């Protein structure tokens, strides 16, 4: 049974008042040289992070930079393989989230981590319910205190209501209420605004300022640039599991922050131009695929694009801009509220994966482990999986035809495997990716959608995959390339469409396909918090599309 911590349940203001004066603030929470490995991946490498007393510290980085891992280490979900945590200067080890919470570190996770079927009040006080003299839960006090807590955030709701009947924003507020009602010294917020309405964001900021005033330190993760500039004191930028920058936010301008996140130095970016990679394709060719008005609530807002045979179209945008969703929508894998897709002049009437495949659209998904590869099956089986219907006669699969197809693709894509019967799970990341590519190429597609095709594979294999993409396009395939790496996008693509908040924010063609130009568009369209004009952190940009009224797109369902 959970230890009775009724004392902590009181909504009394937490004790330690931060030193608001000019003295150099002592660190509350420190990660020193922290490393964390997962099978096959180095998630964090020698990361040092210092949270000073009474500051709001922004933690930023692209997808896979290690933000989540760092947060999970700070909050006791994971334990570091190397390095140590220090709480107020003393080394600590958290074995469980519970221990971190006991130590005064409470967390609001990106996806609200509450129990939907339980009531609001039960969620707020779970594990530290107020008890009466008999040691039983005192529901009346629990409900009163919950109502008071939420009332403090400007929310009036019946504490007895099951959580799942509330809107997402209100649920986030309940999570916040839970986090601050413990006697917290540190509150960690992992993208708390990604599901909030504009008014709720204001409420959240109000609460954050209030916590700040009480001397509580906050770690704030968000990729909405202007939110960071509005509320945060300092910033730490992570990239590829390493800290690339820590400093005062006021002294770091927005373009620089974006370039730090994406790993391109401004000087280099400005100096470099388009490389020999992208030769001009015939721009007059008839598009093989046209999409217009692709819309899905909170995700896509009228995306339109067209793809010509022999062309590599890059799809750029920051995390949460709707890149992957656009690719999924084109492949019929994302149910749409509206929009039209035309392939080879014929409009797809029903958008489904099967219809897309029939029309010749193949998608190589972002997460090949979860959405593509079947590790327990052999290379041969993985390759022919999607093509089985074509290799089947009267319900029987011809092994000879399978072998022929597999042989062709293993040679052509230079798949390195002991034999076609080797399990795909035993191959390297690059070869797994090639197997997936082979699977879709078997179907003889006209349009190939590649979502982060080189993520997580080593440098050599990366170059090979990039070469393959170019070859395929040269053979007349229309390729859509999504990549977080500016270099790959710029060098691989003939044309780049930049997305922001689920709609097209800009397009680069011809000589404009440079990292500098792309970076400029990205920085200008960096996701903004709603209903608030961009802060003047950015000097001379004509930032007309910056203050879009649609804030929802800012989360990336994986």
């Amino acid at each position, binding site marked *: *049974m*959970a230890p*009775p911590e009724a004392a902590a349940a009181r909504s009394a203001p937490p004790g330690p008042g931060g030193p608001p004066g000019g003295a150099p603030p002592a660190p509350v929470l420190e990660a020193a040289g922290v490393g964390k490995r997962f099978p096959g991946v180095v998630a964090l490498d020698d990361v040092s992070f210092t949270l000073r007393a009474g500051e709001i510290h922004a933690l930023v980085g692209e997808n896979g930079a290690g933000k989540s891992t760092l947060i999970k280490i700070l909050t006791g*979900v994971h334990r570091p393989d190397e390095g140590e945590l220090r709480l107020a200067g003393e080394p600590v080890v958290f074995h*469980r*989230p*519970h*221990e*971190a*919470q*006991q130590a005064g570190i409470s*967390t609001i*996770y990106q996806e609200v*981590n*509450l*129990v*939907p*079927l*339980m009531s609001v009040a*039960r969620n707020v006080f*779970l*594990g*530290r*319910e107020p008890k009466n003299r008999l*040691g*039983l*839960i005192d*529901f009346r006090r629990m409900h009163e205190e919950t109502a008071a807590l939420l009332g403090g955030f*400007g*929310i*009036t*709701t*019946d504490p007895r*209501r*099951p959580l*799942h*009947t*509330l*809107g*997402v*924003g*209100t649920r986030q507020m309940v999570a916040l209420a*839970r986090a601050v009602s413990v006697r917290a010294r540190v509150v960690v917020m992992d993208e708390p605004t990604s599901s909030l*309405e504009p*008014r*709720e964001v204001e*409420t959240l900021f109000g609460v954050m300022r209030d916590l700040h005033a009480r001397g509580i330190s906050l770690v704030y993760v968000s990729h909405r640039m202007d939110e960071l500039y509005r509320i945060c004191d300092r910033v730490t930028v992570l990239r590829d599991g390493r800290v690339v920058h820590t400093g005062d936010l006021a002294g770091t301008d927005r373009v620089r922050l974006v370039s730090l996140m994406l790993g391109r130095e401004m000087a280099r970016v400005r100096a470099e131009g388009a490389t020999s990679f992208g030769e001009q394709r015939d721009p007059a060719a008839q598009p093989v695929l046209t999409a217009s008005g692709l819309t899905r609530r909170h995700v896509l807002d009228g995306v339109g694009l067209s793809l010509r045979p022999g062309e590599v179209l890059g799809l750029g945008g920051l995390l949460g801009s709707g890149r992957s969703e656009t690719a999924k929508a084109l492949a019929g894998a994302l149910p749409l509220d509206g929009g039209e897709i035309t392939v080879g002049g014929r409009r797809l009437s029903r958008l489904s994966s099967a219809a897309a495949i029939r029309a010749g659209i193949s998608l190589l998904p972002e997460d090949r482990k979860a959405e593509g590869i079947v590790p327990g099956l052999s290379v041969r089986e993985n390759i022919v999986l999607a093509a089985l219907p074509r290799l089947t006669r009267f319900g029987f699969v011809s092994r000879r035809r399978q072998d022929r197809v597999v042989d062709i693709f293993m040679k052509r894509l230079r798949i390195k495997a002991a034999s076609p019967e080797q399990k795909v799970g035993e191959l390297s990341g690059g070869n797994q990716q090639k197997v997936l590519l082979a699977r879709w190429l078997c179907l003889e597609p006209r349009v190939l959608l590649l979502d982060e095709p080189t993520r997580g594979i080593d440098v050599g294999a990366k170059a090979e995959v990039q070469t393959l993409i170019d070859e395929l396009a040269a053979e007349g395939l229309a390729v859509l390339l999504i990549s977080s790496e500016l270099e790959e996008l710029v060098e691989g693509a003939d044309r780049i469409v930049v997305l922001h908040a689920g709609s097209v924010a800009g397009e680069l063609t011809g000589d404009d396909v440079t990292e500098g130009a792309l970076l400029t568009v990205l920085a200008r369209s960096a996701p903004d918090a709603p209903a608030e004009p961009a802060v003047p952190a950015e000097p001379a940009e004509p930032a007309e599309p910056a203050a879009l009224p649609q804030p929802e797109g800012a989360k990336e369902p994986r």
Partner: protein
Amino acid sequence: MKSPMKMLAPAPAGPPPALVAEPRPGGAQRAAELLQRQGVLAVLVLLCVISSVVFSSFGTLDNARGIAIQGSFLAVVALGMTLVIVTGGIDLSVGSVFALGGVLAAWASQYGFVPALLVPLAVCGAIGAVNGLLVAKAGMAPFIVTLASLLGARGLLLALTHEGATTYLVPRGSAFHELGAGTVWGFGYPVLIALALFGLGGVVLQRTSFGQALFAVGGSGDAALLMGLPVARTKVLVYTLSGLLAGFAGALNAARLSSGVTIIGVGMELDAISAVVIGGTLLVGGAGSVSGTLWGVLLLGVIQNLINQIGSLDSSYQSVVSGGFLIVVVVAQRYLSGARRGT
């Protein structure tokens, strides 16, 4: 019998976007919630009223006593099952553990009242604890773990009784014998004990941190872990409780039958699961109540009793009716939880 489906209101449209004040849930949602919680009770009462009118022998106190004592053992087993299912787990071992508890109690009753209770509790509690450890610490599927202990407990039972050749008898006139045979106002002790346990179970589930943790673990195990709840400990404890309660029910049954019968308890886990699910506890965990389980047990008992009243009907049809009812309830639950979520 009136189908609960009839009472279903059309699902309301999705909730309006959350602003500052959350709107009250719609009437249909609340009705659905009430129905899910108290639907079985309504059906039970209705069935009893109709039956008393149709069959003169149904509405008698004697018949009620009969139903009560018949159901009391299943009730105790189903109580433990309720707690397990609330955590999103399942305990298939309870039928075997019930029988094992009975045999152990009968064997130990020759040494007195206290051993007759303690021996089955210790052994069955240990089996439950092992279930819990395997589920919580080793991360194994509850279905598999408890299926294994179902077989294991049955095997242990057969070994103890030399393949059923030896039957241990409870000494006549002993205090343990009295535990099964004694009555208060004509209701057997097991009935009163079962009621007391349900009262206690209700308090534990609804009014203690442990109970809240059960709901949280079943509702969202990841969230429970991130909120710092002792998830593993809770699971170990709940399977241990289930084992204890099954063993205790077996001991009570042995006291009532005056012997350790080896062939009982086969399929009892399924009856217990039926009662729990009919009682409105979600099989996926996260929601449920012990009172619902009590009504579920009684409903199964009443259905059996009614089929016995209709002399011409083979008693085997009881399972057919119960099974049909279970389907109706599960389908209704599906629709109700849809209505409650406003989808």
